[in-house]
């Protein structure tokens, strides 16, 4: 286990994509492999499908004025 500057930049770019409204970059960062999970703060906010989670990220990005 080691500190990873590469991963720090990957996560930073993901947030920058959300901020800038870069839909493609947001979609491409999310795995579609089985086993994907996303949890929000609300008990109902659970997604097990990467495609659905990616769509939601894009929707939220637009609602928050990304771009």
């Amino acid at each position, binding site marked *: *286990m*080691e*500190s*990873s500057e*590469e*991963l*720090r930049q*990957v*996560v930073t770019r*993901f*947030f920058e994509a959300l901020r800038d409204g870069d839909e493609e970059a947001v979609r*491409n*960062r*999310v*795995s579609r*492999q089985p*086993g*994907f*999970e*996303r*949890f*929000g*703060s*609300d*008990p*109902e*906010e659970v997604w097990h499908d*990467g495609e659905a*989670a990616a769509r939601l990220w894009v929707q939220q990005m637009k*609602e*928050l*004025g990304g771009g």
Partner: protein
Amino acid sequence: MSEGSVGWAGARSQMASPVVDAVEFRFTCVLHLEHGEWKIVQWHSSIPSTNEEYGFFLTKSVDDIVEAVSESRPDLSASSAEDGTVTIAFTDIEDSMRLNAFLGDRRWLEVLRAHNDVVRNVTTNHGGTVVKGQGDGFMLAFPSARRALTCSQAIERSISETFKDPGSPVRVRIGLHVGETTREADDFFGHAVNYAARIASSAAGGEIVVSSLVYGLLAQTGEFEFEPAREVELKGVEGLQMVYPLAVAG
């Protein structure tokens, strides 16, 4: 951090939206190296405050509006009658902290957006001005008490139609008061605005309540029907005050 084809990260950050100025949140994520690219395979985000604190953040809006307006003293000349009076309306979703907890943050924000659209659109359509909107509360200004009360009725109707599910717990309370801005600016922003907000707080969900000044202006017209007066205590105001509920809100 990473080890082989698996990595993970976590941090605290902030997000902003048209509804909430800025909310701090935290996240952790797990990433997996897929065909040479790091992909998010697990993500968990949450708001690092208790539900009570978050609910309070979203629902203390009326007090915040009063404070902000009293400090900034916006120009309300466009909403003034010829005699310099302005009718103020405060709107507020009843029991919004509990509603936020009941609905969850995501659904609550959807409700807020729909509610805010109703208040803004109906106010504009009735010639009123949205002085300030924050969280689930609004301060509105009108050049006449009649127009303010007609608009308040329309807001209640539109809220009922927007949240028409019989089980919907969304109920908006509205309070009206009138003050003079031109010669009595100190009194207006120091007292009248706060008084209007307190009258709104004394109303029940779905109810429109007016001050004795507004009642005096409108009761004689016969255009509106009022319930018998109520004696209420208003926070920050000495003595019992007479307020007048509209007979049918809508």
